[in-house]
């Protein structure tokens, strides 16, 4: 019996033209061609997509959730990056 498993692939689907590809799950396949075909059968049985990307999971690099406080803190403290931070005088309708 084989000890070598098929590699793991992450599956991304564009649900319709104009939208991003979105991660939907993963699957195992021996190569990219079969990963795409399997992704079609496993993740788009009900017209969920018009385009599929598959990426070998090995190649995904992720941020560490335990670092997320320091990683994302710089953005949390900069409220002036949002339009609601600014006061607009009465009488101005659209800005």
């Amino acid at each position, binding site marked *: *019996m*084989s000890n*070598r*498993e*098929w590699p*793991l692939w992450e599956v991304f689907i564009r649900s319709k033209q104009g939208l991003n590809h979105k991660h939907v*799950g*993963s*699957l*195992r396949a*021996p*190569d990219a061609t*079969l990963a795409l075909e399997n992704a079609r*059968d*496993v*993740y788009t*049985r*009900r017209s969920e997509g018009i385009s599929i990307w598959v990426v070998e999971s090995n190649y995904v690099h*992720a941020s*560490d*959730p*335990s670092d997320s406080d320091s990683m994302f803190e710089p953005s949390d403290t900069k409220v002036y990056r949002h339009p609601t931070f600014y006061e607009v005088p009465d009488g101005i309708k659209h800005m």
Partner: protein
Amino acid sequence: MKTMDLQELEKRFQEKIDKEIKIEPNDWMPDEYRKTLIRQISQHAHSEIVGMLPEGNWITRAPNLRRKAVLLAKVQDEAGHGLYLYSSVETLGADREATIDDLHSGKAKYSSIFNYPAVTWADIGTIGWLVDGAAIMNQVALCRCSYGPYARGMVKICKEESFHQRQGFESLVTLCNGTPTQKAMAQDAMNRFWWPALMMFGPSDDESPNSAQSMKWKIKRFSNDELRQSFVDATVPQAEILGLTIPDPNLKWNEETGHYDFSPINWDEFWQVVNGNGPCNKERIEARTKAKEEGMWVREAAMAYAEKRALKKTA
């Protein structure tokens, strides 16, 4: 890790759960939470895959092309559901093939309902109506599970499964409006599947020692008995519409509680089937083991082909 650290991590983990923040694969989680999920999700995956067997047997025997196409689509869905769930298990660091080997060795369980045979065409309708109905009741509750990948998988599965229950019910409506023989066949299927369907929700709350922890971790949202009661309450009116009799002389509406009362469940039968002595346990595991062993050359050939092509590309 120091003990203090561990306590602090566990405290923070529970705070996240209490605040309804989902747990994602790389987040810290207690070992026991991980283990519980690996056990539960892999057994759920096995149930989807083993569940293909009783129905798959009827694909070539479906009474017409419409029913055949529907059954084929349903069985294909079950395969897909198994795959979503095995993917979820892998996000917890479990080895997919090892969980499958645990199924084949008898170490891992699967839903005991699939150890009952589907002997007539009415069984196929009844499985869709009662077995998928009970599964949906369970799975809808799991859509809010604290573990993100499992909850997301459940949302997708529930969307797809609502057709499973409807096609079964529709098939039974046809049989129940058919000849007396067809109606009798539907009643016979009901008689055999009613109690095993109620057992699908698992042991009573007082016999289910791990439930409290699973509820605290929000892996489970409702107890086995609560879900079982919801299923009975939802199903009795459907049986009335079919004109089928539920095989329980004590089943009756309780004005006070606002629920149906029903007889105690035969837990001896449940444990017999769980522990391997149901009508089809041996057959099911043999079929799964055979599929893996005899299909192994296909996996190996596909891998060899992929490697050969990769070599050609670099050459």
